[in-house]
């Protein structure tokens, strides 16, 4: 279907299903239950899941396929964001020009950075990309303040021109929208104790992520994608096989930069503010972590990794002692106190600690990331429940890695 083989088609359908039904999947607990704290089905976080999913998919096209570890990809996301906000300030609150411009500007910037950085490989490449991103961040934070609004971040104002739209409606900035549907419009569905929110902005992001995912599958399976894998596998052999690895990596770099720009454009379409911190090295590091955590080089792993980290950041950081006491309200006070005492360092302000521990555990025990974990589980289940003994376990299959 759609030019994909059977296995990819089913993966694609799973992804479509997951994104379309995300409001249900992410809100498994009734509103009133204590576990509702773990629900993630609210618009902002759902949008973040798919936007960072796009960012990670794009990063994976570079890192997962070619093995070139860019430590400065957040710069493209940041530059894309600025371009998007400027479009909304100058042109219109319709998000299409903003998103389009984000991709274009990020693409152009990645042509510049890629052209220079790809002259080196290995850690030298990583440091070059890091250097570009840190320079972008530092300058955006300080001397470029007229363009970027520095520390605060570039935001909309009531007196923006918006030549194809309106500057303000009744003293308010008009909402970002697409064909008149505001990104922040939501519809609620209440079923018993459950409440599900369907947000216009989320569905726009979700559709774009599905497209982005589809494009990435096509690239993975194309001759171009095969060449990128060859870059990672053995660049020397590649050159002696009559292939010029430079334009391949360069093209992958620019495509992946445009994915980052797309993610940046969507971020400002959902929430029209572009802060300089999204270009800092920690932000670049975050997408590296997402990709590796999910499973670099796999089709869907990076999306899972992105979801995992964003879930931690947004859900764990909001758990406080008060909530813990509510959970343990059924227990004797001394037991509850003891439990809260033990858990306290890992929640709320301790979410970084928990995240650090999880990173270490995943890397130590699951070298292939979350996808490896899933594969092991499914292998275990198959082994456990299949009637015929496994026959092909010993032969490492190339397809297994995807």
């Amino acid at each position, binding site marked *: 279907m759609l*030019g*994909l*083989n059977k296995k990819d088609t089913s993966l694609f359908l799973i992804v479509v299903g997951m994104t379309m039904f995300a409001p249900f999947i992410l809100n498994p607990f009734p509103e009133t239950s204590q576990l509702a704290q773990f629900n993630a089905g609210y618009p902002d976080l759902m949008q973040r899941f798919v936007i960072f999913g796009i960012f990670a998919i794009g990063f994976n096209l570079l890192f997962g396929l070619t093995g070139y570890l860019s430590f400065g990809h957040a710069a493209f996301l940041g530059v894309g964001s600025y371009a998007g906000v400027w479009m909304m300030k100058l042109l219109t609150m319709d998000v299409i020009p903003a998103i389009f411009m984000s991709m274009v500007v990020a693409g152009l910037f990645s042509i510049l950075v890629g052209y220079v950085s790809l002259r080196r490989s290995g850690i030298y490449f990583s440091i070059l990309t890091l250097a570009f991103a840190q320079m972008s961040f530092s300058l955006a934070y300080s001397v470029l303040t007229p363009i970027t609004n520095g520390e605060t971040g570039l935001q909309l104002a009531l007196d923006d021109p918006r030549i194809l739209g309106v500057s303000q409606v009744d003293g308010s900035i008009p909402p970002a929208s697409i064909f008149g549907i505001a990104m922040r419009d939501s519809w609620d569905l209440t079923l018993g104790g459950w409440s599900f929110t369907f947000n216009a902005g989320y569905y726009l992001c979700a559709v774009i992520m599905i497209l982005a995912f589809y494009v990435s599958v*096509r*690239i993975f*399976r*194309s*001759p*171009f*994608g*095969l*060449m990128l*894998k*060859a870059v*990672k*596998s*053995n660049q*020397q*052999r*590649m*050159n*002696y*096989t*009559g*292939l*010029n*690895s430079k*334009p*391949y990596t360069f*093209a992958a770099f620019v*495509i992946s930069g445009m994915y980052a720009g797309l993610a940046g454009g969507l971020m400002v379409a959902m929430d029209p503010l572009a802060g300089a911190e999204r270009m800092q090295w920690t932000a670049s590091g975050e997408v590296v972590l997402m990709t590796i955590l999910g499973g670099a080089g796999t089709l869907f792993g990076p999306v899972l990794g992105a979801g995992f980290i964003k879930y931690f950041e947004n859900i764990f950081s909001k758990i406080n002692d008060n909530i813990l006491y509510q959970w343990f309200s059924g227990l004797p006070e001394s037991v509850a106190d003891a439990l809260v005492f033990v858990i306290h360092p890992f929640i709320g302000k301790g979410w970084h600690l928990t995240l650090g521990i999880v990173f270490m555990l995943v890397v130590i025990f699951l070298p292939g990331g979350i996808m490896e974990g899933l594969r092991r589980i499914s292998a275990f289940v198959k082994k456990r429940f299949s009637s015929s003994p496994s026959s092909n376990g010993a*032969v*490492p*299959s*190339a*397809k297994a*890695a995807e």
Partner: protein
Amino acid sequence: MEILKVEGVNKSFGGLKALNEVNLSIEEGNVHAIIGPNGAGKSTLLNCFVGKLTPDTGSVTFMGKNLIGIKPHEINQAGVSRVFQTPEIFSDLSILDNVIIPTLASNDGSFSFNAWNGVQKRGEILDKAESILEDIGLAEKKDVLAASLSRGDKRRLELAMCLVQDPKLVLLDEPTAGMSRADTNNTIDLLKRIGERGITKIVIEHDMHVVFSLANKVSVLAQGTVIAEGKPEDIKGDPRVQEAYLGGAHI
């Protein structure tokens, strides 16, 4: 007809002269062996053919085309393929992918942005790749990771990767190094079969058994200079060669 011409090639590393006024002429269709003791400059010479090294002076021309200063991938596109001393393959890709890549390279050129349609849509490429795997007897393992092959199989795979490109000239750097006698014989057979395709080959070898089973011309390299050249049986008896191998070389 002369396919590769080497004239007055010199190459030094620091103070060490690795190649000294090397002249060589390879006839089309020949299997030309370059032999010589360790450190004679055989691999250095080969590296000068494929663009890995640039000679200090001298010229290398392939079918009338200058090869000096040309990038490795361009040399390959011109029709020169190389098999390395330790197999250079795409270890973490499947065997089939390992052959598809060179097939695509000779079909689509050194760069082509086919990022949309899957490899599966390219029937002619797949057929060609699979048929070469048939030839070398790796067809059943085509979905296996290349890294899991035995050393001998890896070398055969690498050879297949070169042959599938229908090169005009193949450079073989010690194709049987480190192989058992049986594997060596298999490889010789394979190379002989390929010989039937009429591809010109340059073989660097230590193993005289291999040289004499395959080559129809031999050049002897010692201390960076060609000291003898001729038919295998002539070379066998040449005193200079004996001297280079047994006495003169700095062992």
